[in-house]
């Protein structure tokens, strides 16, 4: 059963990106690409030639996207219980963060100034949104009395509403949605972190990114609305919410967005302490 779920969830994670693009296009009054466009993109990237600067050629640079992709798939395997052991919030957050950090290390090792600025921006964002993630999780654990994520079955939005809303705001930074998308700002730093990657490495990078976004949607739906079939309905709702926000807001400047995110992290610590 579990393996079937994973084999469904992985393509769905990529498909969600296609739906997001379609929604964005509709908000902008365009027809938009077909929903399966991300698959076409990935196939094309996979067949593309790989070129990189001689300064970028090092083991970390090559290994980072592949390791990140492997960790992401591993994360899906344990989320849907394929590996056959119960796991807690801590393991989940650890794996989720590690995949992101490895991508940052990969981009920093490329020695490109664009990647460097993007990596530094992503690190600062990571510090902020991980705090929100952890304190929301702690709040939900203490409220539901359940340490294991695999046994967690509560609607977080009702038992800890403030923390849940803060988690949704952290989602902007995780999914790189405006106004909190400085690390992926194409006009400023030409999408920076992927600047030096091409071909199959970029394929692995993009796929890991799609899986990461998908995992956030799945996890947010489980945390906020409970682990049941009905919470699946909320995944499109989350998608619609983020696409709408992306379509209607410009980007904050990097300093301003980081200070906002750190303030929200502070709020999440307070709300976690108060248990709301």
């Amino acid at each position, binding site marked *: 059963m579990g393996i079937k779920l994973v084999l469904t969830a992985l393509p769905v994670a990529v498909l969600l990106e296609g739906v997001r693009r379609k929604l*964005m296009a509709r*908000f*902008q*009054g*365009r027809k938009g690409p077909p929903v399966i466009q991300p698959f076409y993109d990935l196939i094309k990237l996979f067949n593309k030639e790989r070129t990189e600067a001689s300064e970028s050629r090092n083991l970390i640079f090559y290994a980072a996207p592949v390791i990140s992709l492997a960790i992401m798939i591993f994360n899906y395997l344990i989320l849907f219980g394929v590996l056959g052991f119960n796991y807690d919030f801590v393991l989940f957050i650890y794996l989720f963060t590690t995949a992101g950090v490895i991508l940052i290390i990969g981009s920093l090792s490329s020695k490109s*100034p*664009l990647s*460097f*600025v993007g990596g*530094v921006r992503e690190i600062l964002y990571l510090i902020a949104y991980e705090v929100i993630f952890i304190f929301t999780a702690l709040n939900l654990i203490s409220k539901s009395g359940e340490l294991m994520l695999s046994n967690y079955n509560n609607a977080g939005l009702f038992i800890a509403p403030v923390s849940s809303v803060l988690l949704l705001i952290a989602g902007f930074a995780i999914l790189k949605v*405006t*106004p909190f*998308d*400085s690390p992926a*700002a*194409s*006009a*400023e*730093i*030409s*999408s920076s972190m992927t600047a030096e990657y091409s071909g199959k490495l970029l394929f692995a990078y993009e796929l890991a990114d799609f899986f990461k976004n998908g995992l956030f949607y799945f996890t947010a739906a489980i945390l906020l609305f409970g682990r049941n079939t009905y919470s699946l309905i909320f995944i499109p709702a989350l998608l619609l919410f983020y696409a709408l926000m992306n*379509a*209607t*807001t*410009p*980007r*904050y*400047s*990097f*300093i*301003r967005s980081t200070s906002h995110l750190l303030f929200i992290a502070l709020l999440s610590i307070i709300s976690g302490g108060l248990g709301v």
Partner: protein
Amino acid sequence: MHNLKFPIGPQHPGVKEPIYLKVFAEGDTVTKAEFRGGYVHRGMEKLMEGQETITAMHSAEKICGICSYAHNSCLTNAIEGILRINPSLSVKMTRNVIGELERIHSHLMWLGFLFHDAGFDTLFMYYWREREKVLELFEKITGQRVHHAINFIGTTKINISESDKLWINKTLRGIKEKVNDYYKDLINNSVIKERFSGVGFISKDYASLYNTVGPTARASGIQWDTRLTGYSGFNELSFEAITSRDCDVYARTIVRIKEITESINIIEQALEKITKPAPAWKETWIKRGEGYARVEAPRGELFYYISVKKNHLLRVKVKTPTFNNFPVLLKILEGEKLSNIPLIVASIDPCISCMERLLLVKDGRSNILSKHEFLRRYCGHGH
């Protein structure tokens, strides 16, 4: 993040034409910016030398793809100045309609780029949709979307009929309504206000010291518009130069949006003054003469100096608005944040292919070279 050297361009999503900005930064703050151009130099001035006046008018259009008509009209005005030809009011107004439509299309395109740089792609799409309507108008009136080639010496190739007038007015009313709607959204959007306000500050003193022109100067409180000199019948139309005292990116945005509305008003007045069809073209001959003209292109004052002998151009010198606006850019980038660079670069509306001229000064003698000559002499390329 100390002493970071940050390259912007020649290929970069933040700059729409190939320029190379080498930015030195301390942390997230820019300490110095250096500019290197020459990527789209095509030797247009040299190309026009030796051409017949009427051919050169078409060549001038090819200097720019956005303000092509401004170049054409400026050269036409210079040639007509030498010949002392004063076209009829209907001809002048037909030219003004095309010129102002071009200003609307240029500003709408610029607004799209600015919001794309600010991460607001929805407004980018919305503004470009309105721009498309202007391009359709161009196609209907002149037969071309970008290079219109409507001018002859003393007359125009096209006539704007009564049905065209109705259609133009109807389309422009639609655009005005939409632009006003977006303007309301813009001034109510706190994120845009926060992002644009106080960024890229060009004080009035700096603006005049660096000789900025056009909307960039007007947004810094300098009340100057070349149209106020009354060339090409602008003295018969009532309009005002839109200015602002805020001096930042937000002010430049607001000035350009208001200029769109003002241009629509000008077109409505100009259409009423077109009463007679354009006269037929009579061949002209210039034995020897020198002339100049200046017009208000979408980005500011455009200047042409020409020297003519036996109806062929001996020398052409073009001074485009971006040439005036660019030096101040490198100055105002100092002390700004890295994330504001695309906004500031976009805010002066640089048109690089307009600007790129090459003047070699060697031993006190200046030399204008075509692209091929330059490559042959200095880059070791053969023909």
